[in-house]
């Protein structure tokens, strides 16, 4: 892949990764979203699903790139894919706060319309006790929130300047947390579905595959470097 094409590919990837939220907006405009039996539930699942899927895509970049040296350019897409995972995770979190937690968004908006600028904060004060119980008591909320915090840290440290400032090694150490974010996201999924429901299984298998490949690579690398030493010493 000629280097010149990469910026164009980036544009295509931007467009592709914006399709879910664009269609959500279209469905909002057309009324199809309101016709959903439970729009809140629908938005929650949609944003959560895409956050996880895009996170898995970002984790797939390195293994796919290793298939052949001609795929090396894929690495240049990894950061933006990761940033989109954070984007959808943030929409997911916002959905929880403003639509799912019990926050009365309708009243907050109504207050703003009538010039009561404090209304959104007042509503937040009302919803906060329930949110606090969720944060302190509900494991699936905690683990999901942890995943979002990791993605937030990776997003803040994603610019080249920060990388240079942190030093490559520290930066890489921090960004390995993305594996933890993936695991936390999948655990979040398992803990939120009912016992016996196996819907998170496909995502879990993909994550296991992507992490498993890395373990295999690491072992192969160690074995190869380990073997090369005695072979050369034996030949001496």
């Amino acid at each position, binding site marked *: 892949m000629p280097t010149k094409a990469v910026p164009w590919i980036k544009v295509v990837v931007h467009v592709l990764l914006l*399709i*879910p939220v664009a269609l959500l907006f279209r469905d*909002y405009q057309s*009324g199809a979203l309101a016709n959903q039996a439970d*729009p809140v539930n629908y938005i929650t699942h949609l944003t959560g699903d895409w956050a996880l899927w895009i996170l898995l895509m970002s984790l797939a970049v390195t293994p796919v790139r290793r298939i052949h040296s001609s795929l090396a350019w894929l690495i240049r897409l990894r950061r933006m894919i990761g940033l989109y995972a954070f984007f959808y995770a943030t929409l997911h979190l916002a959905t929880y706060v403003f639509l799912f937690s*019990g926050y009365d968004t309708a009243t907050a908006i109504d207050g703003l319309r009538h010039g009561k600028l404090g209304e959104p904060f007042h509503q937040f004060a009302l919803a906060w006790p329930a949110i606090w119980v969720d944060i302190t008591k*509900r494991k699936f909320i905690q683990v999901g929130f942890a995943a979002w915090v990791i993605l937030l840290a990776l997003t803040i440290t994603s610019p080249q300047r920060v990388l240079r400032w942190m030093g490559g090694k520290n930066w890489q150490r921090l960004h390995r947390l993305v594996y933890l974010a993936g695991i936390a996201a999948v655990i979040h999924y398992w803990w939120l579905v009912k016992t016996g429901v*196996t819907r998170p299984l496909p995502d879990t298998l993909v994550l296991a595959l992507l992490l498993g490949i890395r373990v295999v690579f690491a072992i192969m690398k160690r074995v190869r470097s380990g073997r090369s030493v005695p072979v050369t010493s034996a030949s001496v």
Partner: protein
Amino acid sequence: MLLKFAKQIPSSEITSKDAYESFNATRRRFLGGAVAMGASAAAGALLPEAAFAAPTQTLTKLNVVQTKYTVSDATTPEPKAQSYNNFYEFGEDKSDPAKNAWKMHDRPWTVKIEGLVKQPQTLDIDKLLSYRPLEQRVYRFRCVEAWSMVIPWDGYPLSELIKFVNPLPSAKYVQFLTAKDSKTMVLPFGIQFPYSEALRMDEAMHPLTLLTFGSYGETLANQQGAPIRVIVPWKYGFKGAKSIVTIRFLDKQPHTTWNDMNSEEYGFYSNVNPNRSHPRWSQARERLLNSNSILPKIRTTDMFNGYSEVASLYNGMDLMKNY
């Protein structure tokens, strides 16, 4: 016992024909749009419009007697009640049953009456349907997942059937088994089927407990549990067994499916109780799904889902322990 003979539904709160039509029109526009998009896989991935596009079942109009059972909130639009169902035999997502349940045949259908009864027997669905006049009762339907609907159910008290089949005095529980058919159902592997639910005899005999054949004046759609189900309005929705094939009278409390899966989350009683949190969420409030607004309508959950007349059934019981 004080029955809740609330005031007639104020006409302002019944979904108007216009509102209903515009809802349908939007739905059709949306469907049209989806068709126009043709093979757009992305759109398919986004909205489960298949719920509407699945082969539709023809629902038969029922002759129903209006009753005074009603609630103060507007009725949930019928398409919402028929596209958002927990019926795990037909898939794990709430949009799955509407897509998959059309394969089930609700005729011929029989219900086996067995266990501690004088005369075990098998009853034909049409005989059951015509045994008593069908009443239309607008009940609150509170899902354990903290959302709720307002639905007009059509049926007659379960007590009428129980009196007819004449259980032995030793019968203390009534168990309901749902149809299980691997040819027409998805039957996800994480859950043991057939689905089993049960009520204590006094709960089953309570006048609010409705043997249900229809909703909105029509026969039940398959995804709602056609052709025969139970509605127990003061309990979480999953207590109302769907597509019943067996009614069994027992002297001991039988196993029930969700209680088997996770007893901490789904107690045998599962009375609606805002004070007893589900381990994963609060039950103090609910999202009332009865409008076409994207913003959630938050409602405070009432003890026994507002049906306080059942409280006497649980006198002396600690409902935080017997949840």
